[in-house]
């Protein structure tokens, strides 16, 4: 499992009702349901992802996150997870509120634009950074709302939500996720745990 997913896996309580936004091929939900008796759904728009989920027995619903979560009632879930999707949304701020409407808690993982290598690329070379976490060239990237570790902290506070945990990681190797010093500078990927 991807390192960020492994960390999220550890954060999900046994038997939780989970909504996974942009669930990809359903790897996380499949593991959670097999080993932690988690139930819930993945939302996904990629057709290959949907087929892979179905093969795994993961309940997946084709839904464009930019259309919101209006079809999901308040408090329908214990936890909403969103990995690597925040930055492609048209309104990440509205989505954050929506996530904390349908559940009391959410976990969000996204690339940290303020990682030192990204800063180096932009600051010294004057070029848009390309890295493992931001693999696209500027002209074909789906990422329209890149943010930094600090930006996201500010957004949560501004919207009145509580950050209960956060971590940053470098690379996809396991065991590298930690509560670093200067996470905004040294974290390539960020994970936040947020409550209402």
């Amino acid at each position, binding site marked *: 499992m991807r390192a960020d997913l492994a960390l999220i896996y550890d954060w999900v309580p046994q038997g939780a009702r989970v909504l996974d936004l942009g669930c990809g091929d359903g790897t996380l939900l499949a593991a959670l349901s097999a080993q932690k008796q988690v139930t819930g*759904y993945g939302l996904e728009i990629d*057709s*290959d992802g*949907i*087929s*892979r*989920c*179905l*093969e*795994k*027995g*993961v*309940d*997946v*619903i*084709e*839904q464009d996150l930019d259309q919101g979560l209006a*079809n*999901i*009632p308040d408090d*329908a879930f214990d936890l909403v997870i969103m990995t690597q999707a925040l930055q492609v949304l048209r309104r990440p701020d509205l989505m954050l509120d929506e996530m904390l409407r349908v559940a009391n808690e959410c976990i969000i993982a996204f690339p940290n634009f303020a990682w030192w290598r990204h800063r180096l690329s932009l600051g010294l070379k004057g070029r848009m950074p390309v890295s493992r976490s931001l693999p696209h060239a500027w002209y074909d990237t789906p990422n329209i709302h890149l943010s930094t570790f600090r930006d996201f902290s500010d957004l949560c506070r501004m919207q009145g939500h509580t950050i209960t945990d956060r971590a940053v990681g470098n690379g996809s190797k396991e065991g590298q996720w930690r509560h670093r010093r200067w996470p905004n500078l040294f974290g390539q990927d960020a994970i936040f745990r947020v409550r209402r």
Partner: protein
Amino acid sequence: MPETLSSTSVGLVTPQVARFDTPLMLACGRELPAFELVYETYGTLNETASNAVLICHALSGHHHAAGYHHVDDRKPGWWDAHIGPGKSIDTRRFFVISVNNLGGCHGSTGPSSENPATGRIWGPDFPLMTVTDWVHSQAMLADRLGIQQFAAVVGGSLGGMQVLQWAMTLPERVANATVIAATPRLSAQNIAFNEVARQAIRSDPEFFDGWYSEHQTLPRQGLRLARMVGHITYLSEHSMGARFGRDLRTDSLNYGYDVEFEVESYLRYQGDTFSTRFDANTYLLMTKALDYFDPAGEHDDNLPQALSTASCRFLVVSFSTDWRFAPARSRELVDALLRAGKHVSYANIDSPHGHDAFLLPNERYEAVLGGFMTRIANDVERAAGDHA
């Protein structure tokens, strides 16, 4: 039938007949004292009878879903694209059953059968059927075949409604449900189209209030018109346009009412062939069953509540250009299932072919349906292995 049969075809199949002498109580309050169901099966039932898949047919469909009846058949069964060895519904792994619904005109007891009480053809006296009645009759067939629970019940359009009804009415007998290009209830527009079709049939001078067979005639014109209207709603504007455009049959306009455009010729052909092979009373009955279907209506319009009895895993599939039962109708169902806390997956397949897309090959459709069915087959085989 093609000279060399593809390895993904179920090949030659023979329909079977099951006769039931136990009465069937119907939603309309009447009772069928005895009846026959015609069905086909593909594949082999496993030892624990846990690999059975029921295929429910749509308005003008029947039991012949896959393979060929005769070596000189031009076309295979109506869902041959998806049933066969290695296909989405893999007959190497599943035992597939397809039934002609009661009230149909392809062998099961229906308006053109003899009413044992009178010795006359049932004709318009045949009771109106509901989707629930079909579910009950199909369950009797399952009993006969020794199938306690279906690994999956699968159907498109009116067939999808039967699947939904199965899940609600007999939840313990359905492990998985696949509802394709269907709707939890018809819209006023849907009912309106059905009514135009029915009026076309009923106003045919050869209809004789449904007693046409006793007059040795057939309301062909009415049935033809009904099918033409229906056919328009099954296609998308795009697929009609792409196929016919405004192409003329002749070099120039002839300023008359004969066939001038290719699309007119096509519709007349569709209507003509249909009117010779389908029974008018059956068409009326089937469209009524469509109109009546409304599980939410029985629960103060609360669809999640109507679905609350279901315990299976659902797959709901819609098609982007289907305007007969548009993707939004499938979304309504998915949202209700979600609210009811059921296991549900949903995919909207991009297709230019309108409602008919559910019958046609499509890579993504096959990946979705095939993915869902593969998981079911794996589960069934794992459980059978544990059992053994």
